[in-house]
């Protein structure tokens, strides 16, 4: 029998017991829907996580430290490469060298210091850090009030909201309770005065000598961030940010300057670490290798995300297994329906054989029925899964909004998932049809014809 004849007859048979076959198809739909729902949740969460990481700017950043620093991020690196005493200083020359590595977009020293800030004639202590203008696209500035710096050396300052609250005398509240709008309004456009210590190289004989000169600098508050842009720094994280070029020009005394003075080879400033930004996450590995060849230690978040990617692979696998369980139950439903159909249509099968149907014809007919139920169930199930996803996404966003978070896309149904779901349900149905179809094909026609 030709394929389209099998399909036509199968369609007729399915319509004959429409209720039972619809229920079986519904079962497959629910199975496929649960599979699609589970997997799209996994994929959505993974995309959410990697989107966050990508926008955090950590994916395309490499932290470079000097081997002379003896405080490597990565112990393995201590055991290879040049000896610390023979390795280069991380100074302005080194920064230029790193900037020339192919794939590096910008290199800036990580400068930060603890200082006293005066606002409204009251002193406040905080960590100050430089912020390059490239970081303004990062999602740590999501929900920021005010604006980013006008230029790289503007005398402007962006505050983290907890520090803003402290300036307003509201520091007793936890960070979740601080409303960024509330604290930003009275502060934006106001001035504060920051004190800092400038490191000035002396022209004396000693190669490593320098003077420390105290300064005060008035700064205009232009922005208050809702999030914590410097959260990766842990205890050293800054709550007050000034433009990167400004902080470099200030030549502020760094915490490690004193320590480094004993091993310095010149009176030039040495950086504790510089951050190299790469044009794309895919280039991080090669750029890291190139910087290592220059004699520095490197660290990137890429190593940390390896385990994250593995986690999501395992999560997807388990979600897939749970989703498949429902499909397995549905496939048993197909087997049951078809076995029942064989019993019911026993005589019909006998008649078909008597008028010339081969085993393959009968088998093909049952296969076509199973496949049709699978395909239809797959289509309905994918639509249902997508719909469930939309509903949950909608619900989650209402919840997030109430909690004061921006809306997220935690649900993702990519085209390949639709294709996989359809293919999988079709395949599972055919597999389920295997036993009933071969049973129907092997039916003894004489017995079948006698059946009433």
């Amino acid at each position, binding site marked *: 029998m030709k394929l389209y004849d099998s399909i036509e007859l199968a369609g007729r048979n399915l319509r004959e017991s429409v209720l039972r076959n619809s229920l079986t198809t519904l079962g497959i739909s629910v199975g496929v829907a649960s599979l699609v729902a589970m997997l799209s949740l996994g994929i959505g969460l993974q995309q959410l996580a990697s989107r966050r990481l990508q926008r955090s700017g950590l994916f395309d950043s490499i932290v470079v430290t000097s081997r002379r620093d003896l405080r490597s991020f990565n112990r393995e690196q201590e055991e290879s490469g040049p000896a610390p005493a023979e390795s280069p200083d991380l100074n302005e020359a080194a920064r230029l060298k790193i900037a020339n590595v192919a794939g590096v977009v910008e290199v800036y020293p990580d400068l930060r210091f603890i200082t006293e800030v005066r606002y409204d004639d009251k002193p406040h202590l905080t960590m100050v850090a430089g912020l390059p203008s490239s970081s303004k696209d990062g999602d740590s500035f999501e929900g920021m009030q005010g604006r980013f710096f006008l230029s790289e050396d503007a005398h402007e300052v962006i505050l983290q909201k907890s520090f803003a609250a402290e300036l307003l005398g509201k520091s007793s509240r936890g960070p979740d309770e601080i409303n960024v709008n509330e604290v930003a309004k009275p502060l934006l456009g106001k001035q504060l005065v920051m004190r800092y210590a400038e490191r000035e190289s002396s022209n004396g004989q000693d190669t490593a000598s320098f003077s420390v000169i105290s300064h005060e600098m008035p700064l205009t508050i232009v922005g208050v961030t809702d999030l914590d842009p410097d959260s990766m720094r842990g205890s050293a994280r800054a709550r007050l940010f000034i433009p990167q070029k400004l902080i470099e020009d200030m030549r502020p005394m760094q915490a490690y300057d004193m320590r480094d003075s004993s091993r310095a080879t010149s009176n030039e400033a040495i950086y504790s670490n510089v951050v190299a930004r790469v044009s794309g996450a895919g280039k991080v590995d090669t750029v890291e290798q190139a910087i290592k060849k220059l004699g520095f230690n490197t660290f990137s978040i890429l190593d940390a995300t390896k385990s994250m990617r593995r986690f999501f692979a395992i999560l997807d696998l388990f979600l897939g297994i749970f989703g498949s369980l429902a499909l397995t139950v549905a496939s048993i439903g197909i087997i049951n329906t078809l076995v029942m159909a064989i019993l019911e249509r026993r005589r019909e099968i006998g008649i078909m054989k008597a*008028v*010339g149907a081969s085993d393959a014809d009968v088998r093909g007919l049952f296969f076509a029925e199973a496949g049709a139920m699978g395909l239809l169930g797959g289509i309905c199930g994918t639509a249902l899964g997508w719909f469930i996803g939309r509903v949950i996404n909608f619900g989650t966003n209402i919840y997030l909004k109430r909690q004061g978070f921006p809306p997220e896309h935690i649900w993702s149904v990519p085209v390949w998932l639709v294709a996989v779901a359809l293919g999988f349900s079709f395949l599972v149905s055919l597999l389920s049809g295997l036993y009933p179809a071969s049973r129907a094909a092997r039916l003894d026609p004489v017995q079948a014809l006698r059946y009433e």
Partner: protein
Amino acid sequence: MIRAVDGITLQIAAGEFVALLGASGSGKSSLLNLLAGLDSPSAGSVIVENQSLSDLSRDELAKYRRHTVGMMFQSFNLIPSMTVLENVELPLRFAEVERSKRRALAMSALEKVGLSGRLKHRPIELSGGEQQRVAMARALINQPRILLADEPTGNLDSRTGTEVMELIRRLNQSLKMTVLLVTHERDLAEKYADRLIFLADGKVVADQPNSARTVAGAKS
């Protein structure tokens, strides 16, 4: 083990109209099933057109049933969910005949049995005689050389039974189609068959030319 058919040796010539007679359980339907290739003998062989059926694969047997033999049953065995036309078309589907040709062939077959006005009806909407005529159209659609009819008039009143038998006889005579008629009605057999074979307990008890018909034929 029950021996439904036991030690039978028969030879039927092409174009013959043979009636298999016997009480129920005498093995006549089992013999017909063997000839139809629906069943296979535990010993011995069935040879049709110089081909032993036991040498055929399951696929080849299906092909044999499709092209060499046509079957009619007492209970018609039409598929209730299909229309008259679809029932007659069914063997053509298995023979992989083109859809357009299929329709034309089935319609002409139904015309021959006088049912061209009932194409879209379901079997249940037809009388017994009409159903049996549909079954006949279906049995003949692939132009088989042998017609195996298992009590074709068993469920019909005598008038429609006669109509059906007349149709069968016409086929036998005009197309030289071999007909094997299973029946327990001796009158019917004597009226139409050329040869009568009597079965009892799976054995042939008598095998004789139909003298009654020869006489009747001489009279007419």
